[in-house]
């Protein structure tokens, strides 16, 4: 009888421990007396544990515990960019690649506290143009995500979601082809891509929690894995960016952009994709008033099993060495005006 009691107590104790949810614990905070930041995108954590990315008023900037400093300015000079639309890591260090024109990728090398550019690549795109969303450099190739129209007619278009170029700007291959209706042909959907592990890329659309694994060497899809998602998930419709359905003749461009932003914040859009410590980490909106604004979903990068669901109001800008770097209170571009410029750094606590 006594042994049964001990067993029950042991089981209850084990259950209580296992059901204890992981949470984010703040380990550092960088607070700056700085003009409000208008928009943040394309961020990653450098080797020196600083944040590098696009901060609209600063252009391409580096955030350190001391402040926010512009590292690449706007202009036609050799160390400047014209209109940065994609910023990503080039190689294993802190060198940066910036796509700033319709078909140029400019490489910037880390030099002391700044960056200097010595080369750029021009890739060929026809008049349909490639709506570039994200890019990774792997196996000496650029993997650019975004709708690339291969052919089109009155009925619709055939597009590819990944376009691969070599360092000479030659298109090597397109991957993940699909058909779009005539209304959808200028699809603005975001597609995330990261270097997952050595010899493997992970691709995920903002509206579909399915990870596609790609071998950069063979340029082939290895497999597709649907991810487990929490119950709050509110799926973005596949024709989300089919704006022709939602606008009326005469609607201004500003109205359309505002409408897209409103719709974008109304669904569980996948904001970003990260890899750290054998975790595949993504952040999505909860769209649930009872919960915090965002959820960070942590998956095992081998099994793709959901290991942790972490809730926060902060916008994730990168993950490194188990530390989650966030901008406090959301992304100002989507979550309204945020006056305080505060970066919170968290660690996962079980």
């Amino acid at each position, binding site marked *: 009888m006594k042994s049964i009691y001990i067993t029950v107590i042991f089981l209850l104790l084990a259950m209580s421990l296992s059901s204890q949810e992981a949470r984010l614990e703040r380990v550092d905070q960088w607070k700056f007396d700085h003009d409000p930041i208008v928009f943040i995108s394309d961020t990653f954590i450098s080797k020196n544990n600083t944040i590098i990315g696009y901060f609209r008023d600063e252009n391409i900037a580096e955030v350190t515990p001391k402040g926010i400093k512009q590292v690449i300015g706007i202009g*036609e000079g*050799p160390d400047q960019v*014209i209109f940065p639309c994609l910023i990503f890591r080039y190689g294993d260090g802190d060198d940066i690649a910036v796509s700033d*024109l*319709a*078909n*140029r990728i400019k490489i910037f090398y880390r030099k002391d506290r700044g960056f200097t550019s010595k080369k*750029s*690549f*021009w*890739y*060929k*795109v*026809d*008049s349909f*143009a490639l709506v570039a969303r994200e890019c990774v450099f792997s196996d000496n190739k650029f993997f650019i995500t975004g709708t690339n129209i291969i052919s089109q007619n009155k009925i619709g278009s055939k597009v590819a979601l990944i376009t691969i170029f070599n360092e*000479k*700007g030659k298109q090597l291959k397109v991957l993940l082809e699909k058909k779009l209706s005539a209304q959808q042909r200028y699809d603005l959907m975001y597609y995330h891509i990261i270097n997952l592990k050595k010899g493997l890329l992970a691709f995920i659309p903002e509206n579909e929690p399915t990870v596609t694994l790609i071998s950069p060497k063979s340029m082939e899809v290895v497999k597709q894995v649907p991810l487990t998602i929490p119950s709050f998930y509110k799926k973005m419709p596949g024709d989300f960016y089919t704006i022709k359905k939602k606008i009326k003749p005469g609607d201004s461009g500003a109205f359309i952009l505002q409408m897209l932003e409103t719709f974008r914040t109304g669904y569980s859009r996948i904001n970003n994709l990260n890899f750290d410590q054998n975790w595949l980490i993504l952040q999505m909106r909860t769209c649930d008033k009872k919960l915090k604004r965002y959820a960070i979903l942590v998956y095992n990068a081998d099994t793709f099993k959901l290991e942790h669901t972490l809730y926060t109001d902060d916008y994730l800008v990168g993950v490194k060495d188990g530390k989650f770097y966030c901008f406090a209170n959301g992304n100002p571009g989507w979550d309204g005006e945020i006056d305080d410029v505060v970066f919170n750094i968290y660690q996962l606590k079980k």
Partner: protein
Amino acid sequence: MKKKETIINIAIVIVVILIIVIVKVKFFSGGNPQAGYIQDMEKMTVLDLKGNAVKFTSLLSGDDETFVLILTVYDCHTCILKGHEQLKSLKKEGKQAIGLVVSDDVPDIALWAQNYESAAFYVIKKVDFYTHIRAQQLPVMFTIEDKKVTGSKAITTEP
């Protein structure tokens, strides 16, 4: 008194004639408005994609018109493609057609031009561009005949 009236009448006639001439020249001249011009063409030097200096006038056709597309790589992408298509079709027609890219970075333009192999591109340095060329906007296509600009048209996204 009569003399004064005559003078006023003559003045009115002169003013009316002037107005007619101005209106005719301005609105009914029949020619296309110029999108730019090139001055001191003889003194202009451009660079080939290896960085060698070339006299601009040596690139012009001796007995026929030459088409010169002037652009920067920062211009609207669709306009660049449109200008390139025009160069291609002019070349097909047997015309002399070249592109001049405004830049101080010749190696970068050489890389850029690899995507437009079917046209001959040269580089004009920024200082030379500002010294010799006036253009309302870029890209612009100049027509040159007998070392004189006979036409110029901005390349836009408009059909």
